[in-house]
């Protein structure tokens, strides 16, 4: 090494001084850009953007709002007759004419349903309209991060984004997505004759308080109990179970029964009695699992099966009057029910395959597909994978049932579980909001909906759900359609409460605190207490009108 590369002490001091000066400059810049200004900027840009959206051509056609819906009712026959289908195709060709040759960019989660859209519905759309689609399929967290970045800065990268209904509360709070009801009124010519909001059964969780649509749902997957029917129905197992526990082996109603069954079927290393949907890794998924399954089914949170006007948010245990999760201020996250939920989770974890504490939903679903577990409460997204003998050992050997509840704390009219309702929303800064709207209608258009339901076991339209054409598939998918056809069962699966406005930061608190219970640092009681405390602190930090 020659001497020229050396750095003496003065050089070092000067570099540090320069860096400190840099920070000072940054701080000064920070001081000058006042927060109010930023807020103002976002609001004004929202306003200008949404007016420009509706400007071209809106005034030329005069249509009575609501006329579009009346038209649609007459054609919602699924599947459409060939003549109707041809008419619809013609409509699609005509309506997308002005955008032919354009591209749309879709940000979506990498789920099986989106692969289906990319591989089957997307090409159909491209052929019909001549508009190319750029897909970006990525993980849940990255979808959230990227769309918030995009919408907050107003960069306008994505035409339309696809995510869980979890975010609708955020959209309500921030007003970052285009109000689709308004768009439909202003541009009735863009509403597909087959599009009918009344036909979408899970729309309740995709609207703002005025009932305006913010997200057009594209999938509805309740999180249900899934069990190995071959084991449950084997006479030997039944007899052995009855003699050991004194009651019949059948899909359980209560968590203590789940515990018995898990104990009975735990025969390592080839068979384990239980696995939960999301594993127990210190990861966002742990948070999902709790406010989707464990807290609601143990009765954390208030009664009420409709999405609005709940004082106490089910699953989240947050009181919306005081904005507190602590019991002394009307919350429920440190209630006995919550402690019980954490307790059940930990008790059942003992019967899960080893390694569960390093896993999330990916690996958990693999365990089920590998035939290594007897029962689980999991996302029904996985059913089409479980039913595929090429990648699963349990094809034809599983059934679904309603999720179990806690015997003590859960009472009727409290939600039992979660329905993963996901759909398309249009960012306010979308480069082509009209195309985003058209694409989200196309996904659930009568042209596609039945085929989609058949291959990926989901639909959002009552007319399709009730269609007898789905009956033959019912057995293959473990009876999922029978279950969600029941309007009451449907009600017991709720989406994320729409009052939850900052999903991601709250989720972070949930999973970091619950991970401490999983690793044994805190007892369930301490964990519930700390969770409630931390959630309160976060709510205050995020600027909710806390009253405590």
């Amino acid at each position, binding site marked *: 090494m020659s001497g020229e590369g050396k750095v003496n002490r003065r050089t070092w001091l000067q*570099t540090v001084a320069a860096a400190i000066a840099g920070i000072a400059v940054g*701080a000064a810049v920070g001081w000058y850009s006042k927060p109010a200004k930023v807020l103002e900027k976002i609001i004004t840009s929202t306003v200008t953007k949404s007016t420009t959206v509706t400007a071209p051509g809106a005034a030329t056609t005069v249509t009575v709002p609501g006329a579009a819906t009346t038209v649609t009712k007459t054609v919602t026959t699924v599947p459409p007759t060939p003549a109707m289908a041809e008419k619809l195709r013609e409509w699609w060709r005509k309506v997308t004419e002005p955008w032919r040759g354009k591209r749309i960019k879709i940000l979506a989660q990498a789920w099986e349903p989106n692969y289906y859209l990319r591989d089957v519905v997307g090409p159909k759309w491209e052929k019909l309209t001549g508009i190319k689609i750029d897909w970006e399929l990525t993980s849940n967290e990255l979808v959230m991060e990227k769309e*918030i970045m995009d919408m907050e800065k107003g960069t306008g990268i994505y035409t339309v984004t696809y995510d869980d209904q979890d975010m609708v509360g955020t959209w309500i709070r921030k007003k970052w997505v285009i109000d689709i009801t308004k768009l439909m009124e202003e541009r009735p010519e863009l509403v597909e004759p087959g599009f009918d909001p009344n036909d979408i059964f899970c729309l309740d969780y995709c609207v703002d308080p005025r009932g305006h649509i913010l997200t057009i749902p594209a999938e509805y997957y309740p999180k249900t109990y899934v069990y190995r029917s071959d084991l449950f129905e084997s006479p030997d197992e039944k007899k052995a179970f009855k003699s050991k526990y004194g009651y019949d082996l059948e899909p359980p109603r209560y968590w203590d029964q789940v515990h018995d069954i898990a104990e009975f079927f735990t025969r390592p290393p080839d068979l384990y009695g239980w696995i939960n949907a999301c594993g127990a890794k210190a990861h966002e998924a742990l948070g999902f699992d709790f406010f989707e399954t464990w807290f609601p089914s143990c009765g954390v949170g208030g009664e009420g099966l409709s999405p609005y006007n709940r004082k106490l948010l089910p699953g989240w245990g947050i009181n919306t009057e005081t904005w507190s999760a602590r019991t002394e201020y009307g919350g429920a996250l440190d209630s006995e029910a919550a402690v019980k939920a954490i307790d059940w989770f930990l008790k059942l974890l003992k019967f899960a395959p080893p390694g569960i504490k390093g896993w999330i939903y990916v690996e958990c679903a693999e365990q089920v597909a590998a035939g290594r577990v007897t029962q689980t409460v999991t996302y029904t997204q996985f059913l089409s994978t479980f039913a595929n003998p090429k990648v699963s050992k349990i094809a034809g050997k599983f059934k679904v049932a309603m999720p179990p509840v806690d015997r003590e704390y859960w009472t009727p009219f409290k939600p039992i579980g979660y329905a993963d309702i996901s759909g398309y929303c249009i960012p306010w800064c979308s480069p082509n909001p009209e195309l985003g709207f058209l694409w989200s209608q196309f996904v659930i258009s009568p042209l596609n909906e039945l085929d989609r339901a058949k291959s990926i076991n989901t639909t959002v339209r009552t007319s399709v759900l009730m269609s007898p054409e789905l009956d033959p598939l019912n057995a293959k998918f473990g009876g999922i359609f029978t279950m969600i056809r029941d309007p009451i069962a449907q009600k017991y699966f709720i989406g994320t409460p729409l009052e939850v406005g*900052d999903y991601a930061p709250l989720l972070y608190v949930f999973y970091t605190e619950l991970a401490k219970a999983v690793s044994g640092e805190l007892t369930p009681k301490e964990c519930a207490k700390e969770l409630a405390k931390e959630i309160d602190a976060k709510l205050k930090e995020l600027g909710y009108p806390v009253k405590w």
Partner: protein
Amino acid sequence: MGRQVINPWLLFLPAFIIVGFNSFIPTFYAAYLATQKYTLGVPSIFIGYDNFFHLMFDPIFWDSLSKGFAFVFACLVIEIPLGLALALALHRDTRVNRVIRTILSTPLLIPPLVVGSIWLLMVRPDIGPIPYILRKLFNLNYDIGTSPFQAFFTTVLMDVWHWTPFVFLVLVAARASIPPEPYESAMVDGASSWDIFRYITLPGMKYGIMIAFLIRMMDALKIFDEVWVLTAEGPKKATNYLSIYIVKTALSELDMGYCAAMSLFFLYIVIIITFITLKVMARR
């Protein structure tokens, strides 16, 4: 050379502009963010140095920093002696040794992400061969999701797999630079092999060891990709190294202001170590 044949600034500027574009704007922006209370999606508020105060009293931050240094220490304690032993075993420039050296250096340039996925497949309790063999042979439960120590140890093992070849190659080069004369005279004097190692080899390789030590220290402190894929924060935050904590703060908690403050702090630590490294390099 007495005269400047060309204006040095002219030669220097293109590189300066490219790196400067990448370096100055983000650094200043990070400095700006560090002064804000800014959760992504919530309008930011100027809070001055609060983020740095928070950092000073954030137990998780200090925990992750000390875990990071523990990781560095564990890696170095294994890698340097192992690399030294291998270098001494293979330093002779024979054909066989050259082939073995090439094989041993295979992991060195593999993308860190792929290293992470390789080890993920190796240590998964249900499908990984390592837990399988340990269970069959020693009836030992190996589960990086449950045991904080095993999670930590697995990241160290992964780093040893990935980077021992680097230490080894540096030390081979250092060994090659020792002239043969001292060894010859030691042989004549009948010195024991330990004495030869202690009084000739080790002093001769001191500089190489130092360099390997410092550069490994810098890289190990920054470790991200592999651990992110393998365990992320791990049980009881056992592998929550600083990079992981920073990215988690940005991607999960969405607390951008605090993330920026931690980033700047981290940057200073790295700059200090870089500076020490250069000092050592220049002393030669």
